[in-house]
């Protein structure tokens, strides 16, 4: 279980999180959602120990992530997989070598065994046939699936997805949604999805946290959020252009502005 307690984090004067607490249940898909710029990716970086909070704590399996030594943090990260928004594939390695890379670095398995493991991971994401391609030869959707296979290379207990659906065509999107749900169920992973794609994420999430202005603006199962009384939650879940989050950036009176000169 991952528990985030009274977490605060700021970049300069900009408070990204202000005393937020949330819990991520094991073997479930938990979604962190919210408008762009609310710090969703920052939260993943805090959970994985890439950033340190100003105050509060993040506990994973009873371990405070930010009090671990570098060695122990790396040991913990071997149990975590992360799918970056860009895929973050190593561009000078083939698809095969990208997935074999963490296995080669962290195990002493013979190359024949590594080959079997890599082919199994690639088969799980439907890209066994693309093993010899270079990252530059992959489409956006394929790159994300390869990154997913790499995130699974060391059989992690948990996996974090950073905006997995952004910029995908409808077919790739459908494939990714199905893959995330299937992998979570089959491998009994703890999954965290950071996204602002409401429909796709809500379709597979067990629980959703909505972030806004450094606070948790809403939480619950997708059904609870769709039927929430909160105008903000409704605006976000329904994708309405105007509401508590105004369409217009604050400005002076429109008529006065037009007639100013």
């Amino acid at each position: 279980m991952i528990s985030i307690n009274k977490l605060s984090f700021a970049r300069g004067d900009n408070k990204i999180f202000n005393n937020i607490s949330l819990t991520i249940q094991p073997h479930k898909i938990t979604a962190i959602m919210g408008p762009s710029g609310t710090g969703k990716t920052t939260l993943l970086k805090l959970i994985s120990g890439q950033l340190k909070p100003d105050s509060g704590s993040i506990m994973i399996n009873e371990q405070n992530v930010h009090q671990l030594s570098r060695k122990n943090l790396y040991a913990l990260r071997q149990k975590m997989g992360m799918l970056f928004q860009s895929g973050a594939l190593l561009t000078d390695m083939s698809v095969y070598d990208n997935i074999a890379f963490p296995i080669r670095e962290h195990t002493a398995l013979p190359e024949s065994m590594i080959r079997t493991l890599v082919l199994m991971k690639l088969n799980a994401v439907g890209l066994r046939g693309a093993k010899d391609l270079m990252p530059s030869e992959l489409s956006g959707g394929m790159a994300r699936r390869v990154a997913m296979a790499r995130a699974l290379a060391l059989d992690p207990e948990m996996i974090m997805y950073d905006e997995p659906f952004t910029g995908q065509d409808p077919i790739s999107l459908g494939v990714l949604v199905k893959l995330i749900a299937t992998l979570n169920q089959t491998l009994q992973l703890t999954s965290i999805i950071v996204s602002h794609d409401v429909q796709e994420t809500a379709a597979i999430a067990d629980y959703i946290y909505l972030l806004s202005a450094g606070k948790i603006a809403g939480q619950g199962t997708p059904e609870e959020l769709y039927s929430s009384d909160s105008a903000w939650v409704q605006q976000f879940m329904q994708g309405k252009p105007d509401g508590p989050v105004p369409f217009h950036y604050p400005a002076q009176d429109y008529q006065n502005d037009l007639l100013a000169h």
Partner: protein
Amino acid sequence: MKFFHSIGQISLQSLAKLGRSTLFLSAIINSLGYPLLRPKLLIRQIYSVGVLSFWLVAISGLFVGMVLGLQGVYTLSTFGAESSLGIMVAASLVRELGPVVSALLFAGRAGSALTAEIGLMKTTEQLSGMEMMAIDPLKYIIAPRFLAGFISLPLLAALFSAIGIWGGYIAGVELLNVDVGAYWSQMQSAIDFYDDIVNGIIKSIIFAWIITWIALFEGYDATPTSAGISRATTKTVVNSAFAILLFDFLLTALMFGTS
């Protein structure tokens, strides 16, 4: 008031950057054992920063040597001392031009490439991706490049000097008829192995240290945008050039100032 505020801000930012870069250097030094245990990583980087810089350094060395040969003959002939051409060419190259010009070329060719590569890896989250795979990018990416620069530049500087001396021979002896025996024998008798050649090698080792440190740090510290990488690459070349010339002066003063 605003002026003093700006000076204070720039000073603080510079000090903070110096601190970050020093911590970065100490982390690299702690990681240097890793590429020695993984020679494949090191050899690939020596090829990338060293072997691929060879032709640039070799051709530049040849022309610099030829120019030294031509200028040397014209100047020395005024005093009837053409026979000292070999000393002039060799001393200029092994003491100064070899280490300095090869370092400047290395900063432009390999230093800028290192910064752009590391900066791009940062921008495309490849370094974060490694961190998340529990693989330390300082060990896997940075340390082999640092060591490769450290090994390559002194060798390139030695090649620059050797080819330059040959260039001086072509211009002075083959084209302007300086006596071949005088060219080589005067060089042989006047150039001291420790005072001239070893000091030149020490200079190029120090320049290699400075250039790879600046190049790798600028890439690692770059703002992860295309403009950020462009700025970092420019800073690598400019700062390396300043640092090379400053340290060349300091080292020359130390090595040859009292002799």
